[in-house]
């Protein structure tokens, strides 16, 4: 058979990758005390909690309407404000669009700091600054949204075709015009789907934020859990599930219409 032998150069590379993944997993598993036997043997112990969680307390639903709405309101404000602020942050962090290296470097680090600090930190920060309640939650989600969208969007912007922006520059357009007409529209579809993704994340994040007193359905969740009312906890989770499913349906249909 006259056929060049299969190149083997990648073999060593892949072997290295596999060894790295395995050793990292073994090291981590040992570090956190991962044990399948423990998980399987004690599975029945967990069933007590699950039995207490079922059936969901349907009567509790009536008291969930207002907090649920508040959660949605918090998420809307956080997504809209954060979504707007994310655009300049993303543009300056895109290697191909940023005016100079210094701006790029500073913005990139700013983005990283935003993403490093957990959403709960922002919630506590703003709760201390403006008092417990939904406004603190909305502010925290604003920062969280900027963190999520700017990173994803700047990556999309880096992969756009530079022909159009360069053409705008070539005919004497300003930097701002280049961004506005040459760069942003190309990644618009990505932006829309990231914004919708951030909204979905925010709905769930605002549940968590409620746990530290930033308003919404999470506050109810925390009080019921603290009182061991697990049937009510299940009800709350179901309510969140329905909300998440509905929002996904809507955002998917919007995405489909816009693309």
């Amino acid at each position, binding site marked *: *058979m006259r*056929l*060049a032998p*299969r*190149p083997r150069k990648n073999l060593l590379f892949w072997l290295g990758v596999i060894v790295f993944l395995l050793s990292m997993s073994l090291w981590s598993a040992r570090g956190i005390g991962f044990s399948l036997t423990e998980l399987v043997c004690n599975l029945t112990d967990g069933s007590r909690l699950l039995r207490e969680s079922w059936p969901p307390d349907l009567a509790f639903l009536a008291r969930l309407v207002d907090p649920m709405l508040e959660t949605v309101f918090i998420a809307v404000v956080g997504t809209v404000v954060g979504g707007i602020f994310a655009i300049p942050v993303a543009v300056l962090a895109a290697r191909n669009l940023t005016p100079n290296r210094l701006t790029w470097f500073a913005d990139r680090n700013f983005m990283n700091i935003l993403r490093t600090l957990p959403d709960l930190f922002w919630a506590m920060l703003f709760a201390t600054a403006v008092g417990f309640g939904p406004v603190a939650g909305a502010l925290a989600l604003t920062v969280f949204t900027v963190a999520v969208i700017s990173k994803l969007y700047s990556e999309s912007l880096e992969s756009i075709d530079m022909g159009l922006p360069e053409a705008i520059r070539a005919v004497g357009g300003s930097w701002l015009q280049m961004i506005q007409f040459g760069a942003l529209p190309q990644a618009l579809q990505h932006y829309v789907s990231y914004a919708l993704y951030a909204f979905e994340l925010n709905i769930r994040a605002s549940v968590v934020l409620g746990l530290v007193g930033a308003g919404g359905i999470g506050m109810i969740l925390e009080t019921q859990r603290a009182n061991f009312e697990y049937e009510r906890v299940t009800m709350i989770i179901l309510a969140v599930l329905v909300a998440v499913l509905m929002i996904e349906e809507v955002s998917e249909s919007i995405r489909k219409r816009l693309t």
Partner: protein
Amino acid sequence: MTQQTPSPAGAIQFRNASITYPNGAIGMKNLDLQIEPGEFVVIVGSSGAGKSTLLRAVNGLNALTEGTVAIDGETVATHSSRDLRRMRKRIGMIFQDFRLVKRLSVMSNVLIGRLAHVPGWRAMLNLWPLPDREIAIDALMRVGITDKAWVKASQLSGGQQQRVGIARALAQQPSIILADEPVASLDPVTTHQIMKDLVRINRELGITTLVNLHFLDLAREYGDRLIGLRFGELVFDGSAKTVTDEDFRNIYGRDFTESDLLEDSA
């Protein structure tokens, strides 16, 4: 070179076959057609005339809504996926847009033609039996791109990609090859090379070959038998060598223009 075992026969028979799409469009209308083993058939017609529909009915990608299509006397059973897979095993298909998995090597793409011939677990784990690998290499040899075997499909030119597409079909050791506008995305020079490849393979291996073509001059040059479709109906069935301009006018329902000829539109 290992011997391509010539699969026996490869006769296709449509009987009163019709396809109406869910949106009411007619893809095929009362088609009666007999194609003999080893024939090289060119199918022409304006776009939407049902050329693709006809090819895709042969391997069950489009299901008939009426009538039957049979291969070597066995009806194509679109309702049983197991039977359908068994029949498709012997029917190679070549696409206008090549349909290669771009991130995989040429060799892997050709081996996709062996998927139905090897045990499922072997195909899942990328453990191809030696005979099947040899069949794949043999298929690559027939289209003359063995030197590209370990190159990623995405790095090939259009003509090379279509050759891989042909090799993938050949790796099936088919009795029938369906080529759906195989040269529509290629430049004129490559177009002639690919058409010559298809004719040569038809002659060498006796594989029944059905080719959809848009260009009339290509149909004349390479076809043996020519079939003309219009609105899903058979309007011409005869020799490609003796077909007249008048016949083409009938098939297309209009005077043909320069855009229907490869040489003039290029």
